[in-house]
C-alpha cells in the first residue's frame, strides 16, 4: 500500500503530533507514505476567502505533482483534505475553471487524482479485520466521543466522506480498538475553526458546548482527526475554565494517536506529550492484549 502523503503546514508546526502519530501508525500497518517532493501550501482558510481560482489552483498545483507519481493522495489534515477535494470538484465539474486553474498551475489538470483521508485508507484499504489482528493493546472499554468537525463531511457532495450528519468512520475504528464509541449529538457541531484567533470568545463558547456535551455523554476522551478541531477543543479548555469556571479536563487525541497506542507505539513517538490536556488517564486505561 503506497500513497503520496500530503502533510500540509500543520503537520510540520502546530499539529506535529498528528503527523508523527500518522506516520508511526502507517509504518506499523505496512502503509508506505511518500511526501510529494516540493509540495506547497493548500491555501486553506485564506485563499478561498480571497479568490476562487487561487483557492483551486493552490491544491491543484500539489495534485498535479501527485498525478505524476501515479499514486492516490493521502491527506491527514481535514482542512487540506477539504481544499484538495474542492479543487478536484471545481476542476472536474466546471470546464472554465479547469482552464483557469490549468493556466495558473502551468499544467493540464483534470481533477483525476484520488484524494483520500487517512481514515478512509485505514478503513477501506487496510480494513478493520487486519487492524484488529495487528493490535497489541485494547482501549479496554474506554468511552470515546468521536468528533468529526465540519471539514471532512461538508459539503457532502464535494467530500463524499461518510454520512454528513452522523458519520461513523472514527467510531468504527474506536470500536475495533476495544473502545466504546459514544452516540452523541455533537459529532459535526461547529468548533469555530477559522475564528480561533480572531474571535476567541466565540470559539470558547462553541468548544465549551462540544466538550461539555461529550462529557455529559460520558466521554473519557475525545477522538479527532482535524488539527483545527484538536487545537480548539484541547487548547481552549483553559479559556473555558477561565470564562465559565468549568474545568473539563477532557483529553483530546488524534485517532492516529489512539490507534498508535493500541499498536504498541510509545506515547512519545505519537506526540502525546504535546497535548495540552494530559492523556495520562487514557494511557493508564489501555490493557495489554490477551494475545501478547
Amino acid at each position, binding site marked *: 500500500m503506497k500513497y503520496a502523503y500530503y502533510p500540509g503546514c500543520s503537520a510540520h508546526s502546530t499539529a506535529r503530533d498528528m503527523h508523527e502519530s500518522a506516520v508511526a501508525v502507517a509504518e506499523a500497518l505496512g502503509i508506505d507514505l511518500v511526501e510529494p517532493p516540493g509540495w506547497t501550501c493548500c491555501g486553506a482558510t485564506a485563499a478561498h476567502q480571497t479568490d476562487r481560482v487561487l483557492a483551486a489552483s493552490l491544491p491543484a498545483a500539489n495534485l498535479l505533482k501527485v498525478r505524476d507519481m501515479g499514486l492516490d493522495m493521502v491527506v491527514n489534515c481535514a482542512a487540506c483534505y477539504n481544499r484538495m477535494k474542492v479543487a478536484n470538484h471545481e476542476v472536474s465539474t466546471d470546464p472554465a475553471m479547469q482552464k483557469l486553474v490549468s493556466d495558473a498551475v502551468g499544467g493540464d489538470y483534470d481533477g483525476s487524482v484520488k484524494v483520500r483521508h487517512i481514515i478512509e485508507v485505514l478503513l477501506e484499504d487496510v480494513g478493520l479485520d487486519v487492524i484488529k*489482528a495487528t493490535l497489541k493493546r485494547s482501549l479496554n472499554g474506554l468511552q470515546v466521543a468521536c468528533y468529526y468537525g465540519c471539514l471532512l463531511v461538508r459539503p457532502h457532495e464535494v467530500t463524499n466522506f461518510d454520512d454528513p450528519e452522523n458519520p461513523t468512520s472514527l467510531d468504527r475504528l474506536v470500536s475495533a480498538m476495544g473502545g466504546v464509541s*459514544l452516540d452523541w449529538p455533537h459529532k459535526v457541531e461547529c468548533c469555530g475553526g477559522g475564528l480561533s484567533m480572531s474571535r476567541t470568545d466565540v470559539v470558547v463558547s462553541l468548544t465549551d458546548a462540544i466538550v461539555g456535551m461529550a462529557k455529559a455523554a460520558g466521554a473519557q476522551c475525545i477522538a479527532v482527526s482535524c488539527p483545527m478541531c484538536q487545537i480548539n477543543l484541547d487548547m481552549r479548555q483553559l479559556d473555558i475554565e477561565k470564562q465559565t469556571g468549568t474545568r473539563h479536563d477532557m483529553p483530546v487525541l488524534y485517532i492516529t494517536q489512539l490507534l498508535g497506542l493500541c499498536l504498541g507505539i510509545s506515547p512519545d513517538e505519537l506526540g502525546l506529550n504535546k497535548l495540552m490536556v494530559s492523556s495520562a488517564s487514557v494511557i493508564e486505561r489501555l490493557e495489554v492484549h490477551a494475545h501478547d
Partner: protein
Amino acid sequence: MIKNNDKKIGAVLVQGGGIAGVQASLDLANSGFKVYLVERSAAIGGMMARLDKTFPTGDCATCIVSPKLVECARNLNIEILTLSEMTDLWGEPGNFKATVKIHPRYIDDKKCTACGDCTQACPANILDPFNRNLGTRKVVAKHYAQAVPNVFSILKNGHAPCKTTCPANINVQGYVQLIKKKEYLKAVEMIRRRNPLSAICGRVCTHPCEDACTRKDLDGPVAVRLLKRFASDKEMEMIASGELTLPEEKTPAPDAKKVAVIGAGPAGLTLANDLADSGFAVTIYETLPAAGGMLRWGIPEYRLPKNVLDHEIELIRRKGVTFVLNCRVGEDISIKKIRTENDAVFISVGVHKGRALGVEGENQTDVLQGIDFLRQAGSADNKPTVRKKVVVIGGGNVAVDVARTALRLGAEYVEMVALEQRGEMPAYPEEIEATLLEGIKIRNGWGPRRILGNGSVAGIELKRCIQVFDEEGHFNPVYDENDRISIGADQIIIAIGQKNDDSFLEHIGARTERGSFKADPVTLQTSIEGVFAGGDTVSGPASIIEAVAAGKRAAESIERYLKGQDLIASRFEETIKRIPEELLPSTKGVEKKQRAASGELAIQKRIGNFDEVEIGFSEEAAIAEAERCLNCALCSECEECVLACGQNAIDHKMTERTVELDVGSVILAPGFEEFDAARKGEFGYGRYPNVVTSVQFERMLSAAGPFEGHVVRLTDGREAKRIAWIQCVGSRDAACGNEYCSSICCMATTKQAMVAMDHVSGLDATIFYMDIRAHGKDFDQYYERARSNDNIHYIKSIPSRIVQMPGTRDLRVRFVDESGRLRERQFDLVVLSVGMEPAASVRDITSSIGIELNEYGFCATDRLLPLETSRPGVFVAGAFQEPKDIPETVTQASGAASKAMELLASARNSLVTKKVYPDEHDVTDEEPRIGVFVCHCGINIASVVDVERVTESVAGEPDVVMATHTMFTCSDTSLSNVKDMIREHRLNRIVVASCTPRTHEPLFRETLREAGLNQYLFELANIRDQCSWVHSSEPEAATEKAIELVKMSIARARLLEPLEGTSLAVDQSALVIGGGLSGLTAALSLAEQGFKVHLVEQTSALGGHLAEIYRTLEHDNISDFTADLIRRAESHSNINLYMEADISAISGHIGKFQTTLSTNGRKTEISSGIIIVATGAKQAETLEFLYGQSDAVMTQVELAKRLHENKFIAKGRNIVMIQCVGSRNDEHPYCSRICCSVAVKNALAIKQQDPDANVFVLYRDIRTYGFREIYYQKAREAGVLFIRYDRDEPPAVSDANGLVVKVNSPDFPEPIEIEADNVILSTGIEAHPDNKRLSDMLKVPLNSDGFYVEAHMKLRPVDFATEGIYLCGLAHSPKCIDENISQARAAAARAATVLSKKYLDVSAQVSYVDQDKCISCMTCVTVCPYNAPFCNQDGKAQIEAAKCMGCGICASECPAHAAQLHHFEADQFRVMIDKLFRREVFNNELRHIRT
C-alpha cells in the same frame, strides 16, 4: 372527442385501493360498470386507514372509511385484486388490454376465515410496516384490524443471508424461530431436512451463516451454531430420558434400486440419508473400523464427543442404510464388483494423506503427520506416544487440533509455528483463542527450514516468512533466508494440509484433476457412467458443511439419474435466491443485545482428558439468543402456520401470476408515500428514537395503533408532555428536490396537536412552521381555535437542527425566533411533518404504460384538464395528481369516474352481473323453527368459550329445532351445511353465534337468500368480541355470558319477520342549477353520458365568473376554454337551457323531483331524477383601504382585467397588494383559498411587463398550496417582495400626499412605509345571497358563512344528506378552477349512480308510522335529518320510504311509539331484555306480540 361506439368495454381498471380508488370504484360499479380494483398492498384502505382522526371534524378516520371498504368488498361488480399492480396497457380508449401482476399472498383467500390461528402460531415478530415500524407484528397477519378483504397474508422477502450463505442452504431463520417457540424437535427436524448431521454441526460447523448475519456489524451475529447444538442436544436428552424413542428401523423394499457409497464421512452419510429417505437401498463401504470419516478420525473428542457422532450415524443407519466397515475398496472388494452390484456409486473417500514439508530431516522418528496423529488419537486404544516438547507446524485448524490433542495426551510444552501473522492464520479465531488460553505458544511469521536431530528429533530451524500471500492473494510464501532461529523439540508434528490417496484414484479410474476426482460442478457426475463423487475428494480439504452440501447435491443427482430424469433442470440450488441488500432489515435503531455466551470447561480441567470443552446454551440463553434474530427473510417458512390453519388455507409455494383484463378505461389513483425523513439528517430521524414522523404519530394517536393511543416517548415509554412539530419536512424544500407544498400538513399537524391535547393532560405543543395553510372549508376556523389554545404555540421558524441530550434523550431543537435570535428549546418528542411524494413504485407503472409525469414524479395534468393523463382513456385522481386532502381526493375520484362513464356510456350495464336468488319461501304462517350454529372460530372463540356447552345449553330453548357447533361457520363447507340444514330441518330462522356482524352478517344473510329464506330472518350473537376477546382470562364467565347472548338472540329470532324492500321508478333526467363553470361542466358530463339535462341559469349569460378570468397561474387560456364550454352546452342535444330563470318551488324525492321555474314570467314545470346545485358564489366587496375613494386602489379582479386589456402600465411603479381584505376576520372567518395564487399570478404578470416595477405583497400566510408553490417561488425570484403582517395589525393606506401604505411586520424591527402608485386588494369570495332561499326549497342546510353543507365533509363532499341532490363549485366553498371542474364532474358521477337505473331499490329497513297510534305531534318530522316523514292528508305522520335512511331517530323520539323501524322493532328488543332478566314470556303473549 372520442366517439362512442358499440365496441367499447364496460369495465374500468382502478389502480390504487386508497380512498380515491375506492370512491371511483363505487361510483362506477353503482352506475353500471364492472370494476377491477387493483391494489399493491394486502388490503384496500390506503393512507386513510392509517390515520387516527380527520380534520376539521374530528371523525375517526377508520370508522368513516371502513364502511366504504366493506361496501367495495360486497359489491358484486367490484373485483378487488390485492397485492397486485398493473404492469402494461395496450389498445385504445374504450378498448384496452391491461396486464396485472398478482403477487402471492401465500394464503388462499377463498379458504381463509380470518380466525387468526396462524398469527398466534407464528413465532416471527417483525416491524409492522402498517404502523410504520412502530411496534411489531407477526409475519402472518392481517394488514390491519379492519382490513378489507378480511384475509390474512404472509410477508416474504426471499431467502435470508444465513440460508443462502450456508452451503447446504439450511433454513436457519426457520429453526431459530422454532427454538424461540421451544419447538426443539421441530427445529431439529427442520435442520435435518438439509443436514442430517445437526448435533455434529452444532459443534464443529464453520458457520458461514454467522458471518453473513445481518446483525453481525451491530452487536455480533446470532449464535446460529450454538442454537443448532442446543436443539440437537435437547433431542438427545429426550431420548436419554425416554421421553422420545429412536425411530423404527427400516429396511429398503426388496426391489429398491441400489446405491453404493464409498467412504462414511459427512458427504457419504448425508447422501446415504437422503437416498434412504427416498426409498433406495444404500450400502456404505468404509475402510476404517467405524463410520464418520474426518468427523471421527480428524476431530478431537473434546470438540466432538463420540456419542454425539454415534447418535446421528445411528439415526441414518435406522433408515435402512447398510454399513460395511473395515473394507477398503480396491483391496477387500473391487470397484468392478461394486459397480455391477449397484445402480449408482458415490465416492466420498475424503483426503486422509498429510502433505510433507519437503525439508531436511523430515524422515526421522518423532516427525509425524498431524492427520495420522489425530486418527490414532481418535481410536479407542493405541493412542499415540507424545514427547515432552512438541512443535506443531501449521496455522490451520488441523494444526490447532493437533497441538491441543498433544497437550491433552501429556506433552509438557507445545508450540505452534505458523507462516502467517495472527490475523492471517486460517484457523478460526475462537480456536486460536482457546489454544492460547490452554497455554500453547504460537510463533507467527516463521517457516521450517530443516528439522534438527540425528535420527531422533532435536529441534527445528526456522526462517522468517516475510509474505505469505502474493498480490493476487494466492498462497505463495516469501522467506528471508538469512533471518533464522532454532528451537528445541522432541517431536515435530506436521499439519500443513492433506491430499487424496493417489493409489485409490488410480484404482477407480475416473478422470482426475490436480490430484482430485473431476466431477461436474452441478451434478457431481464423474467421467464414469453412474459414478458420482463429492466432498473433500473432489474439492480438496473443505468444511463439514461443504461436504454435507456435496452429499445433498449428489443425492439429488443420483435420485434423478435413477429415475431417468434430467439432472440439470430446475435443481434445488436454483430456488435459493438471496434477498437484495436494500430489502434487508435496517439495524438502525435496533437496540443492541449482547450475543448469549456459552460456557467452557475450566482450563485446569482440560488437561489429560478429552472432555468436551464447550458447554452449550442453557434454555434461557438459547431463547434469548433466538430472539436476537432479525428475521431478514420476514417469513422463515417454519410452517407453524400451516399446522395451525384449520382450513388448509396456507400455501407457501404460491407464486406470482399475471392476468390480462379487458377494460374500457383506466383510473390511476396510486396515492402517495410520505417523504423519507431520514433524508433530512439534521433532524436525526432514524437516529434519535424520540423523533417520529407525522404518519407514525397518527399511529401513536390511534386507539388501534401500537401504543393504543398513548402518546409516549420511544426511548422510555414515558408520556410525552412537550411535543414539537416541524412542518415542511420534505416539502417546499429545493434542497431535497421537493419545491411544491404538500397541502395537508399544516392542518394535519394542527389536528394532531388538538387531538394530542385530549390524550395528554397538560400537553405543551409547539408547531414550527413557514406559513399556516388552512385553505379548506372551515379549516381556518379550526386553526384559529387551535391557535387560541394557550398550550399550542405556533412559531414561524424552521429549526436548523435537533440534538438528542445524553441521558434524558430529550430533544433540543435549535431555531431562529421571530426576532432573529438563535434559540434552543427542549422537547420530549418531535414530530416531523413529512410531505407527500409519489410512490416510487408508480414510476414503473407509468413508464411502462406511457403516462407523463411532472418534474416531481406526479402525474402531469393541465389545470383545465385536471383528471386527464397524457394517455387518452387513462384518468387520474388523488394525491398522485397533486398533493391534496381527503375531500378533494374523493371529489377527484368521482370526477375521474365521470370521465370514464362518458367514454364508456354506450357500454354501460353491458358487463355487470346481478345475482339471481331462488324464490323466497313464505314463512308468515309457520311456527318459528330456529337453527343455531355456534362457531369455534378456530381457537379464537373456542380457546376461551366452551362452545360445546353453549350449544347444549341453548338447544332446549323454545322453537330451537337444531343446534350445532362448527369450526368455522363462515367457511364454504360450513355455509353449504347451513343451507343443507335449512332444507333438512325446514328451518325458518337462523342464529349464528360467532364473531361480529360488522364483517360477517352480510355473508350469512347471503346464505339465507341462497337457501330461499328472507335475509332478515337471521340473527347474529357476537360471542367473540364480547366474550372470548374481552374476557379471555375468565373462560367460565365468558361461557356463561355467551350462553346468555345466544339465548337472547334466539328470543329475538322468534320475532323476526321477513321484509321486502320496494322499488321506485327513476326519472332518468337531471336538473342542474347554475350555468357557471361548475354547472356547465356537470351538465355536459351527464349529457355526454346520454342523460337529459335541464340547465337553469339565473342571469342572461352562461359562464359565470369565467368571464372575469383570463389566464390560470400556469398561463392556460381561459377565454378560449370558456367560449368552447358555452358553445358545447348550447349546442348539446341532451341539454335544455333555461336562461334568466328563477326557481319558485321544488318538491319530490330522489328519482322524482318536481321543480317550478319562472322565465320571463312564464312558469315551467321540470321533472328530474336528481338535482345538482351549482349556484356559485360572489366576489366579496369592500370599502376598506380607500377602495372607491381612490382610482389607484382596485381589486385583483379589476387589476387582472386591466392587465389583460393592456391598460395597466406597470413601468417603474410601486404596487402594493394587500391580502385577506375582509377575509379571515370575525366577519368572514374563512379563507377564500384562491387569493394568494391570484396575487402571485398578477404580481408575476406585472414583473413580466416591467421587471423594475416594485410589487409588495402584504400577507398573513401565503397559501399557494400544491404546485402553486412553484409560482410563489418564481415570484420571489422575480423580485416580488412579500411582507407579512399580523391579523391584529393590518396595514393602513393613506392618501394625503399620494398613496402611502404603512405596515408593521413582525419580521421587521421597524414599521414600513411604502409610497404606492397602486394598491391592489385581494377581496376574496362570499356565499351567494340567494343560497338561503334555494336551500329552504331544497331543505338542505347552509353553514354559518352561507355556503351549502355537504352530507359529510370528508367522504361525501358532493352529496347532500338528502339523497338525490348534489353539490359542486363555489356554492360548496371557495376553490380554484381545476378543483371546480373536478367537483362538477364528481357531482355528475354521483348523479349517474341514480340516473343509470330505471328503478331504485328502497331498503326494507325503513321506518313506518302506525296511523292508529299517531297523535299528529309531528316530532318525527322535526327530528328526521333526511326529511323522510311528512304530514299526510289525514293529518298524521307518514314516512317517505325513498328518503328514509333507517337511522331510527323517529322511532326513539316518537312519544306514542307510533313510529317504528322495521327489523328493529321495540318488541324484538323487549324479548331480548326479558330473556336476559329471566322474565318468562308466555307463548300466548308471544303470539299476541307477533300478530
